């Protein structure tokens, strides 16, 4: 039997997980700090997104926390699932984003950025950056809105990769 000396860094996975946890904490603090600011427009919404930041599909809750010069800022969180396999379990996906909706009703540009947090039923944890650039349609007098968006998924923890993706949403504001 022959082989070169092995020197693989077995602690690499631990370092990456700690890095991910650190940035999740920073991101979560920012989201909640934004949410706790005094509301200019109190507006909540629930929406279903096919494709998009949650992967295959997701259910989401959104809350607007600020409005300035025809731009509304909102935070959004959702839930989705991604079955992997028998050994790896199922991924529970939590997309968490900050959105900026700019323009005048019924047409708005919807821009967002955040993280897609994955926790599997086997205890694995991972992060992707999620972004959004889309068109949102909602009449002033209607609680319903519709959105079509480009939602790339960006891997950054270990290796940079961009997956081009998109989503269609239907939602209800209250």
């Amino acid at each position, binding site marked *: 039997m022959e082989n070169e000396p092995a020197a693989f860094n077995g602690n690499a996975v631990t370092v990456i997980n700690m890095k991910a946890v650190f940035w999740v904490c920073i991101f979560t603090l920012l989201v909640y700090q934004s949410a706790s600011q005094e509301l200019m427009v109190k507006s909540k919404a629930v929406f279903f997104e096919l494709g998009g930041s*949650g992967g295959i599909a997701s259910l989401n809750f959104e809350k607007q926390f600020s409005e300035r010069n025809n731009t509304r800022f909102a935070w959004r969180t959702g839930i989705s699932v*991604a*079955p*992997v396999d028998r050994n790896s379990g199922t991924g529970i996906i939590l997309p968490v984003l900050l959105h900026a909706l700019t323009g005048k009703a019924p047409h708005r540009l919807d821009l967002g950025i955040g993280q897609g947090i994955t926790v599997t039923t086997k205890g694995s944890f*991972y992060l992707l950056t999620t972004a959004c650039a889309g068109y949102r349609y909602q009449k002033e007098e209607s609680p319903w809105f519709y959105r079509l968006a480009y939602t790339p*998924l960006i891997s950054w923890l*270990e290796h940079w990769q961009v997956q081009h993706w998109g989503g269609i949403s239907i939602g209800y504001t209250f």
Partner: protein
Amino acid sequence: MKKWLPSIWCIIFISGCQKDTHHEAQHFFRDGFEDYTTFRDLFSESKQRWSIAEITHPDNEITLDSAKARTGKKSIKFTASPSTNGVVSKASIAKQNMSFIEGETVRLSASLFLESMLPVSGLFIMDIEEHTAIGAMPGMRLMIVDDYLRVEYKTGDKDISQPEGRKIAFPRNQWVNITWELKLSRVRKGTVRLWQNGELIIESMNIQTLPKDLLYFQQGTKGIYNSCEAGITANSTRQKLTLWADDVIFEKIN
């Protein structure tokens, strides 16, 4: 705080994009199974030997065999029953902590003896995989279908089969030398070549040979294969099968 929010977001996003460039792992591993007394000797904590064995059925087994060898005096013998009830039947050994990265060409070779009086279809005999944070260890593997070797992607892409009209069956009940070369690429710049007893039976160019992230189903791919597996890596046939392996080599050739 509000006016600093966009700047903070930029810092978080940009600083998160640091690549881990620290790769210190093996590019070469070879085993003729002559140095062992027992099966347990194949594994050691020093990472210089095989890393793990996978035996997923109570009737499956892996043993050292001094009665049959391609070279020297010993080989390793794998026996596996058919897969049932959704559980993949495996009797295989894997070498982890390897490092074959994008742009490199990796060669996996072995002498194999497949014992069977019946045609074989659905037997997996050699895998190369990437350990990912989320995912089912994506990669590629060699598979025997209707007595012919082919290359299969573990994550759904179309198999690479021998060209029609020039297929050569995998000989049963005799030693067969298999050499499998992959030029690694996550885009369509990779190559697969497969030789059977010195004859080139598969050659496919401008293909993807490394896995990429796939939504949330597969995350954390790094463009590196870090695990090579040999033996009966899955028995999806309807018969209990025995396979001997000798002179296994995993190496980067350029």
